[in-house]
């Protein structure tokens, strides 16, 4: 009797155990990374689109700073050098190395999509920074973190309409490389922002392809045609720097707004602090947010993370520029 009873108890325990296992796999989601651990050693691979752009260098710097704060994290940055073939092979190398998380700013969306899929298939969470590949966050890649170009430019537009030209006046826009997504979004965002004040007129808009020399030429021509331009919105800091040269050359006092808010002697924050421009609106790198998310996944064993994180812009004006310069 005894033995039979014991056997049946054992059976019941086993059955219950099996039932729990099934329930467990059905209800409790697994962590995104199985090897996650509070005190583990982790490698984060970052596939950068092109180190040659000042903004992207700034992203690298911020990522490096953020990773330093986390013991156990090591950051590896590979420079795609503006070449989808190079960037693809670098992502493949990261997969071979079995990095614990892949961060990527794809140089182009469609060409890098298969490489991102290979990483996901290999069980590596992929956080896309600033630029997306094709597909949906949460499914084709783990998450997207970036700024919203339209909103950032809209903020600049509102600032123009309310603070710079409350009584109206002429404004001009320098656009980035035509047909590139951020150029279009920033142009439309600024236009939307100034709509709040019908007395503000946009009298000129020209493409200067993100570079200062073309911006200087274009803005000099604008000032010839429209000598009463009071505000210039430049879609990035480099073009704002070029526009400043044109304004100085023409002897005009134009209020210049940049975009990106890069640090360093050539960046927008210092230009605002010096009083050369009235403002610049940061295009946030999302570096801190990306490392925070990596901590959640690797250290806290998160089962899911926010699929899309939009990082807000900061308006840099004479009031806060000096204080932000050291950062």
């Amino acid at each position, binding site marked *: 009797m005894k033995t039979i009873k014991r056997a049946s108890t054992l059976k019941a325990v086993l059955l219950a155990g099996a039932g729990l296992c099934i329930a467990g796999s059905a209800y409790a989601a697994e962590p995104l990374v199985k090897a996650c651990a509070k005190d583990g050693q982790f490698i984060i691979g970052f596939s950068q689109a092109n180190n040659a752009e000042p903004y992207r260098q700034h992203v690298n710097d911020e990522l490096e700073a953020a990773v330093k704060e986390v013991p156990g994290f090591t950051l590896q940055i590979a420079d795609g050098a503006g070449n989808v073939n190079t960037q693809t*092979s670098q992502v493949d*190398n990261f997969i071979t190395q079995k990095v614990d998380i892949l961060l990527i700013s794809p140089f182009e969306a469609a060409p890098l999509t298969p490489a991102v899929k290979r990483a996901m298939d290999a069980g590596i969470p992929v956080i896309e920074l600033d630029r997306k590949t094709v597909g949906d966050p949460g499914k084709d890649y783990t998450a997207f973190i970036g700024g919203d170009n339209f909103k950032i430019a809209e903020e600049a537009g509102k600032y123009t309409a309310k603070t710079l030209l409350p009584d109206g006046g002429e404004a001009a826009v320098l656009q980035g490389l035509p*047909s590139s997504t951020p150029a279009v979004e920033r142009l439309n965002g600024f236009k939307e922002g100034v709509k709040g004040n019908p007395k503000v007129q946009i009298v000129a808009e020209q493409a200067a392809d993100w570079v200062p020399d073309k911006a200087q030429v274009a803005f000099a021509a604008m000032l010839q045609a429209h000598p009463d331009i009071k505000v210039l919105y430049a879609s990035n800091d480099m073009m704002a720097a070029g526009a400043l040269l044109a304004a100085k050359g023409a002897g005009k006092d134009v209020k210049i707004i940049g975009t990106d808010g890069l640090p360093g002697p050539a960046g927008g924050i210092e230009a605002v602090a010096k009083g050369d421009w009235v403002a610049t609106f940061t295009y946030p790198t999302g570096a801190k947010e990306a490392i925070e998310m990596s901590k959640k996944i690797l250290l806290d064993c998160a089962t899911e993370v926010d699929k899309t994180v939009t990082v807000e812009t900061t308006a840099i004006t004479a009031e806060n520029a000096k204080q932000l310069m050291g950062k």
Partner: protein
Amino acid sequence: MSDDKISPASAPAPAAPQKHRDPLALIVRFQSLIGLVLVAIGGIIFSPRRHGEILFLNPDNIANIVRAVSETGIIAIGMTFVIITAGIDLSVGAVLGLSSVVTASMMISGGFGLIPTILAVLALGIVFGAIQGTISTRFRLEPFIVTLAGLQAARGLALVVSGNQYINISYGDGPGLAPPVFAVLGERLFNNTVPVATLVFVVFAAVATIVLNTTRFGRYVFAVGGNERAARISGVPVSMVKIAVYAITGFAAALAGIVHAGQFNFGSANDGMGYELTAIAAVVIGGTSLFGGAGSMVGTVAGTIMLGALANILQLNNITPAMQLLATAAIIVLAAVLQSLVRRREGLGR
């Protein structure tokens, strides 16, 4: 693994008879193979390990290396013909961009099928190259200048064809979609081990090796590069040979452009930027003389893979891209110096 893949290319290359055999000349003849072996050994020694496995030798990693170099490799094969005739072709990277744009737009907006598209793009490459060759020979212009102009022309044409946009390639049946079979260029065959792009490279290299080493045309190419006047006197159709080699580089660039579009589902006027310089580097490291008259296909293939393996091992060890450029520079200089020493010993120094 990689040895298997390059074996068709390294099929016995009948050595051109040489009178002065000294050890240095032998080293130069096989410098890129020696270099490849050295880089491979270095790769094994310095490779990061995971659970005792040497990552550098991981089959996936080898596949990554040979896939990444396939486009520049295809171009370098064509470039080898041109450089053996003492010419140069700077237009190849731009022709790759033009070809990938034309491939994408023919299939997506033109509604053409796979075969017509591929044939048309290859023909475009051949014609583009032949025009450059014709201008260069007819007006006795330096190929450097002619192909520099060709580079600008091809990039300009690519922008016109693409309307300043990049063209995404989506797959399926019906208008505006490309035949799904085209996507095979981005995949791996044989149990997910051999990248298709690499197969294209290997087959092209094998054909080129046979053409260069066993055909009359191949002998003409060496003759034109060795001594143009002597070749002319002995009845070699010098102009035709020259036009043909530029048609070959055009074909190679177009083929690489098709592979590019298929691998990345995408055509952009900016594709292949700077590839001409990587290809020239691979050819020079492969032991082909910029003065013409000497060179080998096997060397070019080995040089191409060596550059890829070097880039791979540096990234696996998280060494900065700056070091990669510096290492490549040192290798190019070393290869050129070795060549020049041999020329001097053989009394051919210029």
